[in-house]
């Protein structure tokens, strides 16, 4: 929360001015009942009609001042809130972009997303409302009490006496209510789970004729949700009538005690009328303050979730390059690399291999065997726990991340395309001339389908490129990877969406255009995607269990042979 308030600093001057105007505007609201009292008690007995009219006009003017003051102040507050949340959101997004992959794994993408969207929204809302209600409600409350104290100190005590009662009511009810809502949330979660399970398993459920059973199961959770919601609702419903009752009792007491005091000649009836007016003001202020607390607690929960991300320390610093450059001829080299995501089981163990410039490496293995992890280490999205990863003979830890990443062109599994033109999707916010885009599209075999579109490179994609076929998406991603003339091309399980003819044409085009400048690393589950590599690594459970060419591995590696046999059919048909 503190962290968020720091963001208010640049707008501090404007905020103070706004709050000052707000203060003035709000005070006007307090004048009105006071003038009313004066009017009835002092002016009316004088029987002076022009004077009554004069004070009436003063009241109208006060109302107008209050109106203008509040509107101006609200608008200023709204501007402060806008600028502040713009800064917060910018910093948050920037910080998220610079989180290391390990940090992102820990925080997970869905929570980052909700922090960036709904939490910043909550904070924005809170910043605006706090500046408005935060000044207005306390002023009305305190000012109301002060003015009434000036009018009638004894009656004010009566009024003040009801406030703790209201406070206790709100506190007790919410103390009881919050656990009930937590429980309700749990019930809702299990209901959502049942719905999810049903939506996903509908074929099995229908096939096994279990729909009636599932309906009963849903009925159970449905009843539970309803019961919890009722209980929470019943508890929370007490607070409003009770608060009103306390205030109204105070009001009655004011009339009663007021009568005594008027009778004793210490007070006047006009004051009691004014008092009743202030009462409305004060009770409304009370309601605003309780609302503010709800908003503040919601907002501060969001603010804390945002600060948590902003405060994450920077990871993956670049180390000094003390170590001499080793063999430059090896484009990629792994020496005894071990790595674990969570620090328990090793996801990669003792991995060593090297690829020469212009060479090609194939990595094959089942899901979870460590193929993608190996790529992550190569690009230094993570640091290995032991051993070293070298690119052109330099330890990746010592390389400037910009230089390191500029060497790679990558095509990930289910990689991402965004809602923009084809050109922009290939360009990917880099400074590339149109010719480079076209060239890359040609090599990636994407040109025929792009040229067939009405608006060609200006064709708009939908989010995630859902308006393209799998193969077309794949080709765009390859074009993107090739567009900036990379030195290392990484395919993560990607050629699977290409039919064999396109695949062959692609390989040929790459060979022709890059002529030994490009080192390729292909990760796959299918042997057909890697069988032409100079070197193939077979991974199983994070270890290398076979290394060599296709023919060598057929000879030496049982698992490779097994995979080969089981896949020859599938690779063809699918």
């Amino acid at each position, binding site marked *: 929360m503190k962290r968020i308030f720091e963001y208010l600093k640049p707008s501090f001057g404007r905020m103070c001015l706004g709050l000052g105007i707000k203060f003035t505007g709000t005070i006007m609201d307090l004048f009105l009942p006071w003038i*009313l009292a004066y009017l009835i008690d002092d002016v009316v007995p004088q029987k002076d009609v022009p004077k009554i009219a004069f004070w009436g006009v003063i009241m109208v003017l006060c109302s107008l001042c209050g109106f203008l003051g509040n509107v101006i102040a609200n608008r200023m507050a709204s501007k402060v809130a806008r600028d502040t949340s713009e800064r917060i959101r910018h910093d948050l997004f920037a910080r998220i972009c610079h989180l290391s992959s390990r940090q992102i794994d820990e925080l997970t993408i869905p929570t980052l997303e909700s922090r960036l969207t709904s939490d910043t929204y909550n904070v924005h809302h809170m910043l605006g409302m706090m500046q408005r209600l935060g000044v207005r409600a306390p002023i009305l409350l305190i000012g109301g009490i002060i003015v009434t104290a000036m009018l009638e100190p004894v009656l004010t005590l009566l009024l003040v006496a009801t406030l703790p009662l209201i406070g206790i009511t709100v506190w007790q009810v919410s103390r009881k209510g919050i656990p009930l809502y937590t429980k309700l949330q749990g019930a809702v979660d299990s209901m959502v789970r049942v719905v999810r399970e049903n939506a996903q398993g509908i074929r099995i459920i229908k096939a096994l004729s279990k729909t009636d059973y599932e309906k009963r199961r849903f009925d159970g959770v449905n009843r539970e949700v309803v019961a919890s919601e009722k209980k929470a609702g019943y508890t929370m419903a007490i607070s409003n009538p009770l608060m009103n009752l306390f205030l109204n009792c105070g009001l009655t007491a004011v009339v009663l005690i007021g009568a005594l005091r008027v009778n004793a000649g210490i007070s006047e009836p006009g004051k009691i*009328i004014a008092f009743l007016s202030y009462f409305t003001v004060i009770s409304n202020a009370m309601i605003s303050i309780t609302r503010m607390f709800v908003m503040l607690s919601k907002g501060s929960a969001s603010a804390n979730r945002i600060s948590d991300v902003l405060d994450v320390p920077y990871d993956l610093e670049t180390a000094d390059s003390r170590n001499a450059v080793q063999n430059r001829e090896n484009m990629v080299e792994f020496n005894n690399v071990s790595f674990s995501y969570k620090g328990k089981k090793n996801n990669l163990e003792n991995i060593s291999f090297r690829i020469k410039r212009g060479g090609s490496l194939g990595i094959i293995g089942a899901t979870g065997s460590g193929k993608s992890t190996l790529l992550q280490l190569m690009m230094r999205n993570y640091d290995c726990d032991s051993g070293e990863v070298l690119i052109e003979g330099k330890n990746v830890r010592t390389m400037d991340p910009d230089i390191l990443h500029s060497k790679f062109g990558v095509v990930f599994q289910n990689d991402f395309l965004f809602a923009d033109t084809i050109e922009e999707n290939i360009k990917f916010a880099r400074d590339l001339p149109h010719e480079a885009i076209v060239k890359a599209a040609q090599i990636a075999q994407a040109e025929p389908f792009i040229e067939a579109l009405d608006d060609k490179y200006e064709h708009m994609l939908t989010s995630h490129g859902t308006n393209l076929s799998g193969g077309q998406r794949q080709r765009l991603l390859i074009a993107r990877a090739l567009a900036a003339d990379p030195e290392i091309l990484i395919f993560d399980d990607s050629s699977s969406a290409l039919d064999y003819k396109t695949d062959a044409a692609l390989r040929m085009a790459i060979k022709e255009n890059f002529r030994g400048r490009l080192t390729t690393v292909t990760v796959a589950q299918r042997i057909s995607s890697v069988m032409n590599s100079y070197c193939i690594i077979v991974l199983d459970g994070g270890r290398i269990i076979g290394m060599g060419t296709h023919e060598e591995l057929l000879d030496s590696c049982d698992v490779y042979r097994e995979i080969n046999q089981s896949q020859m059919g599938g690779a063809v048909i699918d």
Partner: protein
Amino acid sequence: MTNNKQQSNGSHIKLSVLKRLGSYLWRHKGLLFLAFLLMLASNLLALVAPALSGNAIDAIELGKGRVDFDKVIFYCVLMIVFYILSALFSYALSILMIHISQKITYTMRKEVFDHLLDLKVGYFDTNQTGNIVSHLSYDIDTVNASLSNDLLQICAGVVTVIGSFIMMLSISPVLILVFAVTLPISIGFTKYKSTKVRPLFKRRSAKLGELNGYAEEMLSGQKTIKAYRREERIIERFDRKNTDAVDAYYEADYQGCMIGPSVNFINNLSMSFISMFGAMLYLFGQITLGNVSSFIMYSRKFAGPINELANIMAELQSACAAAERIFELLDEEPEKLDSVDASELRDVEGQVDIEHVAFGYTHEKRIIHDMNLSVKPGNIIAIVGPTGAGKTTIINLLMRFYDPDSGTICLDENNIIEVTRKSLRAAYTMVLQDTWLFCGSIFDNISYGKEGATLEEVQKAAKAAKIHDYIESLPDGYDTILSDDGVNISKGQKQLITIARAMLADSSMLILDEATSNVDSRTEQQIQDVMYKLMEGRTCFVIAHRLSTIQNADLILVIKNGNIIEQGTHDSLLKTGGFYASLYNAQFDT
């Protein structure tokens, strides 16, 4: 979610939707009537209170030493009684409304869910799970929050407005003229506000939606962004969207933040006029001081609901939009009921005859034109083809998830349209590629397909599926709860549990979606062994990926773009030299 909100802002209240919503309320008409009475009582009591306090003040007004205490105390006691009663009624009312709205929520959810399960499976293929979930939670909640609150608020508002108007009229018809000035301002302002502000708020949620969409998109691609080091440029673009969003928020706020002060202003204006004219009237002896006091209090009450009206309308609009989405779901066409004279399939042997079947998911696009197939009991049919070619269509027809447009499918010489769905589906066991397990014990998951299965039967199936030893090794054995965050069991083990489920169900026919290698090679071998065991002696339709399965099949169906383009055995298809042969040969031709 943002999308939903946008829609709801845009749409207007439809009468048909309101009518249908009304029918839900109507089912509880007795309780609603009671609620209405309570609301009336509570509001009338609250209305009478200012009059009482006015009377009390009149008794005070006489001044020093002349206060009529009998009267003051009488009215004060009445006030307290009225306030207590009013609080009680309003609490009772809240409880009653929560009760009613929860009853309706329960019914609605039940109806929607029950209907959902009766829908064709196609609905689930075309609607995202997240959407379905949001119908059942977010939409229904929105409708009910609004039904219970807004409806009551409108009624209460009407009562308050009319009530305070009558009270004011009875106090001083002249003073009411003040509202001849302020009411038009109030109404004019509300109108101005809604025309001016609504599009701005719509824009605000649209821009926020865009920002959320962009953030979601970029976050999902963060690995790629990192790989290309495009962070700074992406941040720049995000900033632009961010500025748009906060600006739209500001613009809406710029107009919107006038509302509070304006309402206040109009109230204050009324109060000023009333004070001024009230004082004058008092001067001429037209009105008592207590009357002025109660008039001011009534005037505040009178203005309240009118100012609230705009908010309530906005809420009602979003509730109607949510209701519309719910009703759309309820209006989705369910699976056709079994025909009245449908017979039960018994002791299925597994003879399948498909004759001249034509089918399309939509009428415009026919997928299967004229399919003919004859399968003998115990045959293995391999269905092959590229991903997305429509391999599951045949399964959909066999299990009657869909019915063919023309032609017949017979099982043991019974037309499957003439048998009950339940008995037809019971004839099949299905093992799909994405393992489906629910949150519950392993025992419940395995025995899912056979009601009342004993532990011995479950264990036998698990043994056959070679998963028994693993289950026994867990601390809670068969009672282990499978949940998202609970025991970490691997994909392969999940697959074996679903196979155990299939073993226990023990039907004479099998539908199998052969998994591609998504588990380690040893487990995969194990699964394959168990699968073959499961296939023994059953008529099997296999969506096949493995060459061995394909080669051993009695019949291969080659699917491309939704059509069965070839059928035959491995050898005969190779001999024909068609698509299958070209695919098969291609792999050796690198």
